[in-house]
């Protein structure tokens, strides 16, 4: 479905070039949930932005369904079926949650239809549909609305950049369910999630480990996960499992 061939991305820093993504080649197959993980500063978010077209590679090519989309704009990629959830959702004064979901769906959805997407990310739709996507919403609420806009796109490839960032533990639990449901109903489409979270790694079909801008490891969930766990002592993964269990006990 999506193929990156020898993709590099360089920025100039203090007059010299710094490579954020180095010669990455990988394939996102159809009907899979792929998680890209790895230490901070490893190039994960840049990789997601390269796929969405927000950044353009300095070298290499990107193919979507066999078509070279390296030069395609953000809009063109969106229209070809690539959706992108921002790590830090954007706020808009005056644009309502309903407006954003309608834009995402590319159609004049009824309020009831728009509410389905909000409900699926655990928001009481009635309370949110008319609210502005502005600073009055908390980080967690915004994040869920961001995910709802990606769901509404019904895209062929949905890319989520650290969906767990800024979300409280309760919401995080629901988030896992959202991704699990997406995975179950996957049809002629794929999901790519940038994440540090064990629980998200657990539901992946495949895991790609990105380190120092390059692919360090790629394979099935079982294979990569166990090797990651062996390295866990070296840091990089966040254990919120324990915290969630602790919250469960307080229930």
């Amino acid at each position, binding site marked *: 479905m999506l193929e990156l061939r020898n993709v590099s991305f360089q920025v100039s820093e203090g007059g010299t070039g710094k490579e954020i993504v180095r010669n990455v080649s990988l394939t996102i197959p159809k009907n899979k949930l792929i998680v890209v993980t790895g230490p901070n500063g490893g190039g994960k978010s840049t990789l997601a932005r390269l796929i969405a077209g927000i950044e353009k590679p300095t070298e290499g090519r990107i193919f979507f369904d066999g078509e070279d989309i390296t030069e395609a*704009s953000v809009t063109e990629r969106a229209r070809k079926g690539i959706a992108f959830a921002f790590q830090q*959702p954007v706020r808009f004064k*005056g644009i309502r949650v309903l407006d*954003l979901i309608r*834009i*995402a769906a590319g159609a004049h959805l009824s309020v009831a239809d728009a509410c389905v997407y909000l409900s699926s990310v655990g928001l009481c739709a009635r309370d949110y549909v008319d609210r502005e996507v502005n600073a009055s919403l908390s980080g967690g609420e915004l994040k869920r609305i961001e995910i709802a806009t990606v769901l509404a796109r019904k895209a062929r490839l949905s890319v989520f950049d650290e969906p767990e960032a800024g979300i409280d533990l309760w919401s995080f639990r629901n988030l896992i369910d959202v991704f699990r449901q997406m995975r179950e109903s996957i049809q002629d489409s794929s999901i790519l999630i940038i994440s540090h979270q064990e629980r998200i790694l657990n539901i992946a079909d495949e895991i790609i480990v990105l380190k120092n801008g390059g692919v360090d490891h790629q394979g099935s969930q079982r294979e990569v996960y166990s090797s990651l766990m062996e390295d866990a002592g070296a840091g990089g993964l966040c254990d919120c499992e324990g915290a969630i269990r602790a919250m469960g006990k307080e229930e």
Partner: protein
Amino acid sequence: MVKMDEIQKRLLREVADLHEIPEGAYNIRSNSQSIGRQSSANIEIASKTEVSGIDIRIRPGTKHESVHIPVVLTESGLKETVYNDFYVGEDSDVLIVAGCGIDNCGNQDSQHDGIHTFHVGRNAKVRYVEKHYGSGAGSGKRILNPGTKVFLEEGSAMEMEMIQIKGVDDTERTTTAELAAGARLVVRERLMTHGDQRAISVYEVQLNGEGASADIVSRSVARDHSFQKFDAKIVGNAPSQGHTECDSIIMDEGRILAVPGLEANHVDSALVHEAAIGKIAGEQLIKLMTLGLTEAEAEEQIINGFLQ
């Protein structure tokens, strides 16, 4: 009622959302003449004798009634100053829709200066909507200089919605208000300027009575080479609350000057101002583009939302 041509009808739709003759009291002014007027049982509209304009008297206790007083100008070169005085009786609750549309196809400037004075009685409520609109391909300018004076008696409230989105070349708006105890003034101004347009908006609000409050919020977009100035001053002379906010998007070669002013003459006067000017954030455009909009469509969505 005098028959209107299509341009006059279009202007009326733009400034007063009027498709037909309005219900309730109204006065429709076109090219310096009243072309339709109706008083109601509770609202009396009468011409002034010494100057051009009308007196609108609303009986005490009048509820859920409206007054429409739109103005249209379609003759190039017409310049007029009109004085409209509103006397809103105690305990009434009314909607007043004003507004001016100018269509100038000629090469001479057309100008309408509407001076409105509101005397709002005790515990009365007024919602006031004023829209400005200009059209026409002539080189003559479309000029509107509204002056609004508001006197709010004890416990009264006025909510003003001022909208100027399109086609007015030059505006100088001056609004002054004096609030007695417990009175409340809310202003929502929305403005977009294009081309070489110039729009100046000056407010001075005096909070004179205990518990008086004012909230003045302007949202504006300056495009092309246009210039805007927002100068809002709130003066607290009693235990009172005031808030003024100017939030602007700047585009192209536009220029915006925000001059928020606060003056507290009483220790229990709490006054706040906020002003922010900036271009559309790149991330906002990118987010909407990831949803499939082009950059131009994204920009339009952001501006439309902002000016909602």
